[in-house]
């Protein structure tokens, strides 16, 4: 498998399009014959991150790198940032709006679920600037 790169833009607040990037990337991984169990871990983590950008940010981009040994994803948004990452990582902590909850999200479980599905996770955030979530799943 050679190195491949994909980029997606993610619109804030658009719950019709939320998941389009994850769906597209899942099709790519399927075509590359990645183990279905591994695909599921990657796309669940990616989808959690994509929905977070839609639900909690002003919008952002997703950068996906595939190489023979791993899949590396970078989810970057342009704000508002996460004030306390440790708090955000706690199960049950959520600032999700009523609209987000109506869509079936906002339980404060997403970041933890991301962590449970990946081999490496790093979250960096600066208030007013944005959040960068980087994760890797080994193939």
């Amino acid at each position, binding site marked *: 498998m050679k190195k491949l790169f994909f980029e997606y833009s993610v619109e804030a607040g658009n719950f019709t399009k939320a*998941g389009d990037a994850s769906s597209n990337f899942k099709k790519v991984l399927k075509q590359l014959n990645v183990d279905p169990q591994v695909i599921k871990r990657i796309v669940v983590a990616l*989808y959690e991150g994509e929905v977070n950008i839609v639900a909690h940010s002003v919008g952002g981009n997703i950068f996906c790198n595939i190489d023979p040994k791993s899949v590396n994803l970078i989810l970057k948004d342009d704000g508002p940032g996460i004030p306390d990452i440790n708090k955000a990582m706690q199960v049950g902590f959520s600032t999700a709006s009523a609209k987000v909850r109506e869509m079936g999200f906002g339980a404060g*479980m997403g970041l933890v679920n991301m962590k449970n599905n990946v081999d490496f996770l790093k979250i960096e955030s600066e208030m007013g600037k944005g959040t960068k979530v980087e994760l890797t799943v080994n193939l």
Partner: protein
Amino acid sequence: MIISDIVEILKADVICGHEYLNREVKNVVASDLMSDVLTINSDQLLLLTGLSNIQTIRTAEMSDIQCVVLVRNKKASPEIIDLAEENGIVLIECEHSTYKSCGLLFQEGLKSIY
């Protein structure tokens, strides 16, 4: 149990995915919370939900859930049906409450995930 058995037990309507009704179902999860559904790791899983929106189908797609039952007489919009079709997901509508649907399926031997 296969999906067509479930359709019969629930006296439900198949909205799309008629070609996949012989798929095997082993476990059931009932939830309106997609955050919860996304944490489940189980195969041949059926999702029973009263939440009918695009993200219900996206969640099923990411979680490899091949059959979604909309309970409480919830209807699928054309957009939802298109997305389910595109992903080979069987979509079923049923008039029973969540509780009754679960009860009927449990009685017939379908297991809960935990």
